[in-house]
């Protein structure tokens, strides 16, 4: 469904962030994209959804195709219209607008009144907590509710593929659990999901497939079981040593402590 091939992205003509990223999101699946800060996950998201421009970034090589159609170079609204919706890192809800207006903004590409109503109902079903706060300013919602609103907003576009950028960032474990369940629910409603996460445990627990990024390219991919079993993944993403004990940062090999450019 979504096919990213050999993608290279340069910021400001000087900073090379993605160096040959390739990944694939099959229809109807949940794919996890893991990586430490600065690995280029968010850049990958921007490259897919076409909002690199405003960050002074350029795709210099490679391509992104969606349902067989090339989408790199298209503008964001065309990409959303084709069925890719995204939830930005840090929720980014429109705090000054009401919950309902946030959802209406999410439905911008959707001009059919009936399908807007349907999408709205679906969101209310998924997130019953929003039901009672429809007229409230979004800024007054709690962090978890804001995340739900952000996901709901993205669903208003009736996407075929939903990309979530760190949806559990800064949420309590209870809420992480809740969000996880919601993602599974959404996936059941025939929406493919690309889940960008640092919380590898959570992501790999629901994903059908996982990619691990480091410095702009995929360094490892495979089934969640395979990834979860890998020593390095355990060490860096799950914070566990092979024997289950923490390792001092000083013991980590020098090259693994490399400097991060953009975070």
């Amino acid at each position, binding site marked *: 469904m979504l096919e990213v091939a050999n993608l290279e992205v340069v910021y400001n003509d000087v900073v090379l962030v993605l160096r040959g990223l390739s990944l694939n999101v099959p229809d109807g699946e949940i794919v996890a994209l893991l990586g430490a800060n600065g690995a280029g996950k968010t850049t990958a998201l921007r490259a897919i959804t076409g*909002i690199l421009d405003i960050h002074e970034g350029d795709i210099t090589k490679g391509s992104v195709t969606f349902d067989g159609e090339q989408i790199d170079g298209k503008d*964001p*609204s065309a990409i959303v219209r084709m069925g890719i919706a995204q939830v930005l890192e840090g929720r980014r809800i429109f705090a000054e607008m009401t919950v309902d207006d946030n959802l209406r903004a999410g439905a*911008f590409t959707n*001009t059919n009144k009936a399908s807007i109503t349907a999408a709205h109902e679906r969101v209310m079903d998924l997130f019953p907590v929003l039901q009672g706060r429809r007229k409230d300013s979004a800024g007054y919602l709690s962090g978890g509710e804001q995340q739900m609103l952000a996901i709901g907003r993205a669903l208003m576009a009736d996407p075929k593929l939903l990309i979530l950028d760190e949806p559990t960032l800064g949420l309590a474990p209870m809420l992480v659990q809740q969000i996880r369940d919601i993602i599974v629910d959404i996936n059941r409603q025939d929406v493919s999901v690309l889940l960008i996460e640092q919380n590898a445990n959570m992501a790999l627990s629901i994903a059908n497939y996982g990619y691990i990024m480091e410095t702009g390219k995929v360094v490892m991919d495979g089934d969640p079981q395979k990834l979860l079993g890998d020593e390095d993944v355990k060490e860096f993403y799950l914070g566990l040593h092979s024997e289950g004990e923490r390792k001092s940062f000083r013991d980590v090999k020098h090259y693994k402590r490399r400097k991060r450019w953009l975070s």
Partner: protein
Amino acid sequence: MMPAILVFAEAGGQEAIDKFANATSSGIALGAIYALLALGLVLIYKATQVLNFAHGALAALGAFFAAYLATVLNFPGRYATFLPLTMQWLLSALVAVLITALVGLVLERLAIRPMIGEPLFSVVMITIALDIVIRTITDDFIGNNPRPLGDPWGADVFNVGPAIIAKSEVATLIVTLICLIGIALFFRSRYGVAMRATAFDQEAAMAQGISAGRIFALAWAIGAGLAATAGIFSSLFPRSSIGVSNTTAFFAFRALPAIVIGGLDSITGAVVGGFIVGLAESYAGAYLVGDTWSFLGLGFAGVMPYIVMLVVLIVRPYGLFGTEEIRRV
């Protein structure tokens, strides 16, 4: 308002009431035009975070178009002779507003769009340069003499109690009201919601498939249309009895305190601020004159809006209705 009138009646009799009514009515009429100007400025600021210094130039351009359409071409009146003259003129004015909106659209596309993401004051500087360009061309159009707009109200007046109000002033008030309601309704529409979203967080709005460029263009078009409306109605009797001239464009600067008093990003604030400024200027002009106030020097009324603005800002640093910027480390 009533008690104030009674106090004046007590103190100075009919003459004082007349004076007060006169100052109030002209303050409101002036405020209506400031409100129109402020409305356009705020709309553009809200959507694109740009303070548009070319607003006055667009206002003059709109007024010129109206003058040209109404007095020279008689367009579209010549095709609609069955309409009453007032309607014919209003149609000309409407067409002028639309043309100016189109100009706003083009300007946004050519000069503002490439600046998305650049430092704010660079964009402000662009609008200043645009002001020079538009004003120069408009001045050339206007020619050597100012151009009357040929409006149907002429120098006609109403007598409303002690105040004498020009018909064109009433028209201005009505148009301001219509614009305000129109803008309020617009913000509830699909594009209005999208504009508010873009204003709040451009990237997040783009992620929802909202084309920021189209929203910016729309904001500039509406802003330019509002500027033209303000320009047209500020070129009528008695504010400017000779129509649009090469000084019309400077009028817009007088509305700047209004948008700060109201709060830069508040539509309600723009209108309230406009009327506050209009009244402040009018009252200062009516009462702070004469020997008692001679120490205030020449033209103190023109400074009054800025003094009101300072007072408001000391109490509320983001204006009366402006949203406070949330600052985080």
